[in-house]
Structure formats: structure tokens, C-alpha cells
């Protein structure tokens, strides 16, 4: 251990170094993406009021079945899953769980992200390939 006091000693004994820093940055970026998506999502759903019997909404929903938009949707799922699972880790740390082993907890959370993403990716690619859902 160096004699120099750690510069980040006040933030959980260097919690935001290396892995933690990237975790924090991606958490912030995914959060910002989701803020803008939420705004867009509310506007899209409000098209229910834009024409009689939801015609505008139905036309919009049809256009979202395009492969490019399905893939964009899948990218959004990555942002949601990352933000959710890293958020779980942050809340656990607030309760004092996994503070010392935060890197291990982080990679366990990322494994969960990958597994859940695989489920959504399977459904999305099946839909792109067949035009049908899997259920």
C-alpha cells in the first residue's frame, strides 16, 4: 500500500476505480438513453388519441415490425437489462451487500444480463425470420 492517501478514499474506498468506473459510466449512458426513450414511448402511445379507433397507432405499430426497428428494440432491451441489473448491484451496496466484492457481484449481474438478453434475442430473431412470435 502506498503511503499517499487514496484520492478516492471518500467514495467507498475507491469503489469507482477501473470496473466500477465503467459500470458507472455505462449506467449513466443507459439511463440517459432510457429517459429519452420514455419520452418517445409516451408520445407513441398517445397516438391512440390522434385518430378515430387508433388508426395512427396501428399504422405506427405495423411500421415497428420492420427488422431494423426490431433490432433497435433489442438494443433498447440491452440498455434496460444493463441499467436494471447494475441498479440491483447499486441497491445491494446501499444495504452493505457486496461492497468489498463489488467486481464479482458486477460480473454475476452481467451474466444475468447476457442470459436474459439471449431470451429476448431469440424471440426477436425468430420474429424477423418468420414474422411470427414464439408463443
Amino acid at each position: 500500500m502506498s503511503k499517499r492517501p487514496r484520492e478516492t478514499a471518500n467514495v467507498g474506498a475507491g469503489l469507482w476505480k477501473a470496473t466500477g468506473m465503467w459500470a458507472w459510466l455505462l449506467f449513466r449512458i443507459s439511463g440517459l438513453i432510457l429517459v429519452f426513450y420514455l419520452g418517445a414511448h409516451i408520445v407513441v402511445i398517445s397516438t391512440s388519441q390522434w385518430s378515430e379507433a387508433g388508426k395512427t397507432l396501428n399504422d405506427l405499430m405495423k411500421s415497428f415490425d420492420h427488422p431494423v426497428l426490431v433490432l433497435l428494440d433489442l438494443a433498447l432491451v440491452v440498455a434496460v437489462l444493463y441499467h436494471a441489473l447494475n441498479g440491483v448491484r447499486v441497491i445491494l451496496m446501499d444495504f452493505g451487500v457486496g461492497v468489498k466484492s463489488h467486481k464479482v457481484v458486477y460480473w454475476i449481474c452481467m451474466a444475468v444480463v447476457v442470459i436474459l438478453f439471449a431470451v429476448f434475442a431469440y424471440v426477436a430473431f425468430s420474429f424477423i425470420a418468420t414474422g411470427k412470435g414464439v408463443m
Partner: protein
Amino acid sequence: MRADAITSHRGGMWSWLFQRVTAVLLIVCLAIHLIFTHIVGIGEIDYETIGDRLAHAGFIAVDVILLAAGTFHALNGLRMVLMDYWFTSRRRARVLTAALWVVGLAALVYGIWALWPWIS
């Protein structure tokens, strides 16, 4: 619970607490929302099927919780980010908070209006 986690949060204790409460609500309700819209209902979402889903009070509750908790969580998170940059002083932060409350309440009203054809 680590007390310093609360006191070190510049946004204030209530902001910290509600960010976590809404986070838990969002994880539960978003899981339901994503399973039904992106897995079960993929390619079949339109005015009719949304209406069928929202005929159940439970789904109305899920959507309204998503709208309210999501709007709070999103704008409070945005507030945290912005307070790290330009809104650094107490006075600027207050202006930002007030502006975001106006935006948030407007989004809530607009969101309820968007759902109205199905839930009224």
C-alpha cells in the same frame, strides 16, 4: 443500511429513497411489461390487443405504476446527471428541480390521456 449512502447523496434523502423505491417498482412492473409486449405479444400489438390487455385492472395498475414510477425515476436520474454539470449550485439545482417537476407532472397527465381510450 449504510447511513453514508444516504447523507452523501447530493440530491437529498427523499430523492435517494424514492429513486430506490421506484427502481424496485420498475424492475417488477417492467418485467411484466416486457414479457407481455416483447415476448408474448411481439408483432401483435395494436389498438385492439392493447385494449384486451388493459381490460384487466391488474394491467392498468402495471401501466400506471410504470408511467408514474418511470417518469419520476427518469427525471430524478436526469436531475442527478445535470447536477454534476451545469446545475451545480444550490440555486441552479432548485430551478432545475422545479422545472423537472413541471415536466414530470405534465408527462403524467399526458400519459394518462394517452391511455384513456383503453382505461376509461
